[in-house]
């Protein structure tokens, strides 16, 4: 591989500044509107339910889900994007969180696990950081077979799926496209996301993570 290619890869592999969010999200929304579509990833869950025959049980799933194939392709592309970014453009695979956050994370685990630069992007074993303290090894199969992993993965998944459809959208549908269209319902939903997130983060999550089995 030429030096030039390596330079490009290294450039992309750096951590991206927050304002790149405007570029990434803005371009995504622009392209989807240009293709005469919407931005909303959680709608795929409804489509998958309908495709599996959930329409026999509830009218909510009786819709022309064949017209939603494009959104499943967006999700497939997102999977591929995650794969490439994690494996080939991961850089140091660290989440560059603030010193205050490191302190909070160590408070949650009740011992100093993380120091500056050692917080990984993913709470699990990563390609570049193959060893993670068991306390933060959440996204693994062995974690799934523990009480706390079960609550986090199954409980969290259930609430995401239930809440997104109840609220009629998720972070992409409400917090991005809804807010950008000045939809008051979306603002209410985003306020709801934050109320729920704050309750979970401050009052429940530290105790769930500390369950020793």
């Amino acid at each position, binding site marked *: 591989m030429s030096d030039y290619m390596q330079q490009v890869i290294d450039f992309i592999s750096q951590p991206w500044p927050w*304002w*790149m*969010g*405007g570029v*990434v*999200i*803005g*371009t995504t*929304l622009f*392209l989807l*509107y240009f*293709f*005469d579509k919407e931005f909303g990833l*959680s709608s*795929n*869950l*409804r489509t*998958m*339910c309908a495709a599996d025959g959930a329409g026999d*049980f509830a009218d*909510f799933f009786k819709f022309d889900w064949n017209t939603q194939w494009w*959104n499943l*392709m*967006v999700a497939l*592309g*997102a*999977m591929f*994007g*995650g794969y490439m*970014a*994690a494996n080939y453009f991961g850089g140091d695979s660290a989440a560059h969180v603030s010193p205050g*956050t490191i302190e*909070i*994370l160590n408070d949650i685990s009740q011992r100093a696990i993380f120091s500056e630069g050692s917080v*990984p992007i*993913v709470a699990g074993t990563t390609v570049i950081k193959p060893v993670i303290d068991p306390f933060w090894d959440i996204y*693994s199969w062995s*974690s*799934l077979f523990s009480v706390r992993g079960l609550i*986090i*993965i*199954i409980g*969290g*998944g259930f609430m*995401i799926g239930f809440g997104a459809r109840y*609220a*009629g*959208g998720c*972070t992409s549908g409400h*917090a991005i496209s809804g807010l*950008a*269209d000045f939809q008051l*319902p979306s603002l209410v*939903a985003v306020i*709801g996301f934050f109320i*729920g*997130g704050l309750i979970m*983060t*401050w009052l429940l*999550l530290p105790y769930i993570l500390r369950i020793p089995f």
Partner: protein
Amino acid sequence: MKVFKYILVGFLFGFGMWKLEAVSTFRIIEMFHFESFHMYGIIISGVSVSIVVTQLFKRGIIKTFKGNEHHFTPKDKAWNRYIFGGIIFGMGWALTGVCSGMMFLLLGAGYTVFAVFLGAALLGTFTYGYFRKYLPH
């Protein structure tokens, strides 16, 4: 080509969200503890550019590739569902540290346990659809 363009949009979004660390549980914990501007910066810049994009399409300055104006569907004017559904979603988001979009990134990155998370999310969606008529909207 028809399929490819949607995969490309998803790729761009997924790749970018990973590099912005929005996929990280630790960034979500940081956000809900107000310990950094990073996540808020992503949301604020993302929404700001999206406002411009939305207005360009709404005013018909930019048309879709078919040449027609993009149709915007207003959300229902109901309140209970947004606040209750929002709170449940927010609790799930903070519990796993992952939202419905980031789930696909992690699955693609090789965290196969997210297949179970996806299954649980489908069960949640199905449960909502099943009990929909009994819930306040």
